[in-house]
């Protein structure tokens, strides 16, 4: 293991995080705060409870996931896309590092940033809503697993993208709709039966459901299934990254 290299990449990426602190942390927090004001305080007070949970509290896990997925993907995607774009990737490619070390460095830093963001959003939410966390260990586990998995996914997008538009298109066109339709703002049991079935093909449903369970002990789908789904997605991402580095796809040609 080239630990010095992992450390170098990780610290380099984290330095970028601190440099861009305002854009990368302040804006998602502001956005989330706006959701709380609108959906929690303004509209939420007119909504009934869902599964026995006050609406403002009910949407916290989903909102957190919404930011976490978006930020993990865009951090990691940009982190690897920029060196590719500017040409500085030559240094990483010519260094005595394995792809696993490169991934740990870049994805680790992106996930760290997402986790910091997640914690800050939770603290912000506290200002608006009183929530409880029933299974804190599971909550943290889901948080870490999601941050890492979607940072990996973002890393793949960054490797695949060959212009700035492609960098934006997946988070915009795929992740945001999947999250909105994945039960961030409602319980899927509120949907007509047909759409309940369709929704089960949305992987984000499992993330939000599992995460909400760790807060309030209630879930749309079984927690075990949620966990398995995240792990399956992570395995798929790892396999894709492995393939990319093995073949040099969009990197070494």
């Amino acid at each position, binding site marked *: 293991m080239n630990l010095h290299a992992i450390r170098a990449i990780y610290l380099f990426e984290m330095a970028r995080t601190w440099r861009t602190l305002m854009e990368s942390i302040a804006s998602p927090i502001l956005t989330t705060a706006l959701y709380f004001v609108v959906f929690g305080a303004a509209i939420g007070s007119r909504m009934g409870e869902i599964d026995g949970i006050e609406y403002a509290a009910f949407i916290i896990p989903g909102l957190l996931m919404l930011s976490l997925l978006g930020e993990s993907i865009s951090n990691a995607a940009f982190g690897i896309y920029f060196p590719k774009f500017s040409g500085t990737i030559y*240094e990483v490619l010519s260094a005595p590092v394995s792809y696993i070390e490169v991934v740990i460095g870049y994805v680790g830093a992106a996930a760290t940033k997402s986790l910091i963001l997640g914690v800050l959003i939770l603290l912000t939410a506290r200002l608006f809503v009183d929530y409880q966390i029933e299974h804190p260990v599971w909550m943290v586990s889901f948080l870490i697993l999601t941050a890492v998995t979607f940072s990996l996914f973002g890393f793949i997008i960054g490797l695949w993208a060959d212009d700035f538009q492609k960098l934006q298109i997946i988070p915009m066109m795929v992740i945001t709709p999947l999250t909105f339709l994945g039960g961030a703002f409602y319980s899927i049991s509120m949907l007509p039966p047909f759409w309940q079935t369709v929704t089960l093909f949305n992987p984000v449903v499992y993330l939000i459901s599992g995460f909400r369970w760790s807060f309030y002990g209630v879930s749309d789908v079984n927690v075990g299934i949620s966990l398995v789904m995240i792990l399956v997605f992570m395995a798929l991402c790892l396999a894709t990254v492995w393939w990319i580095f093995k073949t040099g796809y969009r990197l070494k040609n």
Partner: protein
Amino acid sequence: MESIISIKNLSKTYASGLHALKDVNLEIRRGEILALLGPNGAGKTTLISIICGIVNPGSGSVLVDGHDIITDYRAARSLIGLVPQELGIATFESVLATMAFSRGLFGKPHDADFIESVLHDLSLWDKRDEKIMTLSGGMKRRVLIAKALAHEPDILFLDEPTAGVDVELRHDMWEMVRRLRERGVTIILTTHYIEEAEEMADRIGIINRGELSLVEEKTALMNKLGKKQLTLTLQQPLEAIPAELASRPLELSEQGDVLVYTFDCHEEHTGIPDLLRDLNEHGIDFKDLNSSQSSLEDIFVSLVREQP
């Protein structure tokens, strides 16, 4: 002499169909300065990129100090420093930060003293805390070199090191290359400035259209292929070269006042005494004469032109 890099039957075809390298064989000797000359698009950068791990090889093998660049890439790459051609350099971090990154990436523990000495050597120490984006083009080029040296490589690749840099930096670079060579570092540079190869290299390889057409000692190459020319400035312009002299390798300038005689300096008989006698017999007087040896540039141009 012992090889530090051994390239065997290396070929590369890009996905676009471009046949960038065709069966290249090359032994690079430990401690030498090898200049790879070739026109743009000849395959110089592809060759370097494959050795350094930036481009996948097509077929063939490369050993770096006995380590295969694919199966034993860690050992191979640890020995190599690369100064790339383009100024693609992340711009927001400081010079010191980027040096620490480079050194760490190559698996070396942080060493502030060593980094300081590299930055001093390249006149970058004063700029150590500045963001790279604020540096001038020449300074950025120095930073690229400093990054390549950050992990104390045994082999240094310089891809077009002096393209577009000013005279001062070019001389500093040559100075630095010589110092590195004294320390035993093997240096491979690509260039299309022939002056540079002539100034610095021990050996010269010429690449054209993906083929390594020759690799020779610089002096041997220049002797072997070097032609000498005798230029005679005439008293009276000639309308044409007299028929009796037409069989000789003579050329008349447009104004008819300069005769150029080309000869091979390795022939025992240069033919100069005969020529001068003949000129005298035809009553052609000259007021000045001078002889010159062709430069590497002439050799290069003639070699590259020869190929279809």
